[in-house]
């Protein structure tokens, strides 16, 4: 299977002559894809990075769709994707914070697109004592990552899928509907004069098939990611699907 995976990676790499990160084609079997925010042109940009052991390896400068499997470690729970930026990603940003906002309602995959959740499900995003619940509309997030002295970050927030009873208890008899859920986020910073990121998406699989998960992520790539980034995103999606099941 590893040979097959390497062949797939090779095909994706070969299709991306314009890819701007030299290390992209190396060692992709060793990590998982995290959200990679960085500062460029006065705005937060979103790329992708992997963590290999302790090595941050940028794999894309433009990556908007990230996969996540709920229930791999605990039911209805994931702490992936993480948020991972290499040193220098935020020049002059040491001591400043990154925050997130949920910019749309929680979506649910209906086989042809994303619509409203079927049974009042919601998604809680938590870190430490701070949390927000995303349900029927946009909601302001909170500061979650301190930019370190080297200008990088590494932080994992926690994602809990809640049933209609508003709790994430998997044993209370009220479980969220099995299926694919969509979270739209953007990032902002306390750094002065830096614009928030464009939206990016996390596509959560709650017990559905890998095929449906893949299909839903492709739909997001085709219908939500803005046009200039689509080509890169399609290639990036392949990488994301190959790697998203890996745990750090």
């Amino acid at each position, binding site marked *: 299977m590893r040979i097959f995976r390497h062949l797939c990676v090779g095909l994706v790499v070969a299709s991306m002559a314009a890819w701007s990160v030299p290390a992209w084609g190396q060692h992709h079997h060793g990590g998982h894809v995290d959200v990679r925010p960085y500062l460029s042109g006065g705005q937060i940009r979103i790329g992708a990075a992997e963590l290999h052991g302790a090595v941050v390896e940028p794999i894309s400068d433009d990556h908007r769709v990230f996969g996540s499997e709920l229930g791999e470690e*605990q039911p209805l729970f994931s702490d992936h994707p993480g948020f991972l930026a290499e040193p220098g990603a935020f020049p002059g940003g040491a001591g400043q914070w990154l925050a997130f906002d949920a910019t749309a309602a929680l979506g649910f995959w209906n086989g042809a697109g994303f619509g409203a959740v079927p049974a009042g499900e919601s998604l809680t995003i938590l870190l*430490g004592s701070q949390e927000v619940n995303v349900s029927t509309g946009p909601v302001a997030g909170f500061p979650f990552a301190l930019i370190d002295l080297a200008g990088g970050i590494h932080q994992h927030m926690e994602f809990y899928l809640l049933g209609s009873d508003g709790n994430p208890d998997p044993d209370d008899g009220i479980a969220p509907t099995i299926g694919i859920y969509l979270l739209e986020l953007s990032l902002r910073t306390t750094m002065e004069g830096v614009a928030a990121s464009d939206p990016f998406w996390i596509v959560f699989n709650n017990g559905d098939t890998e095929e449906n998960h893949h299909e839903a992520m492709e739909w997001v790539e085709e219908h939500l990611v803005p046009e200039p980034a689509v080509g890169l995103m399609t290639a990036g999606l392949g990488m994301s699907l190959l790697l998203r099941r890996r745990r750090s």
Partner: protein
Amino acid sequence: MRWIWHAMAVWAVASGLTAAVARGDCGGCAPTGHLGVALKAVQGGLETGVYVFDETNPATVDVGVRVWGGQPFQINPFDPYWTDLPCYGATTDSGLPPGSMVGFNILDDLKYWDGQGTVQFGPVPSNEKLIIRYGFNKRCAATGTGFVAGFNFQTVPTDGAFHRHLSYYLAGPNDDCTTVPPALTVPPADGIYLLKLQMTSTAGLAASQPIWLVFRNFPPERQDKENLHCMALLWVAHRLAVDRPRADLDFDRDVDVDDLARLEACASGPGVPYGEPCCSAADLDDDGDVDMTDFGVWQRCHSGAGRTAAVDCGS
């Protein structure tokens, strides 16, 4: 030239002349940064070391370390009584069987030192608790909790490498062990909190030797917070964990001129009690002064910068 340096150091320690220069400032410990608890399979058991989250030098280093400083409380303005450091990690040379799980147990009550005088850990003053949480799992250490069976928090991937953060919440007198996050209607007392753990594996590996997490909880404006944290780290390392020589006075496991400088700064002379509580770490023979005998211990342990010194070098 080394003999000149040593001669000068001998004169300074013998005379105690340098002590006045550095009164009240024994210094902080070596940077702890984004360092975690590294896990490694060694001879049928779990061994701990330092996990270095450094993108240019990924490593498990200093295998045998059993004391971590953690990220201090009260430095995150958005969430002052929560931290997720130290983290837990393994590198590709960990030897941990893929598919197995690693976890922890709490071995003892949460302990506390208020930062006054010399280091002395006792019960927490006002029923404070420390809660460890990952996802739906949470465990609590407080007065009277004793041994608490922990939980597994990481499945070992095929390459043996992982990096995991757990949440640590410091809870106040009015909080219980089950409500996370704590309401914190009354904040926990300022001071140093000590948590004793062991790491576990489902792979048939013996649990690790005890490890200690030494959490600092002082307001950012307190000037001596790093010194107090360092005093506690050294005390735990020297007296409980015994994972480095007594002559390592800056918590970096080597014995070099930096440690000698701290020894000199505390030098009082034979039979003359040292003045500052932080100088208790420099009293290497525990006789109440810092003198030539202590300098002798440093000499026997001198390993040079960056070279780990033997734990029993001073004996």
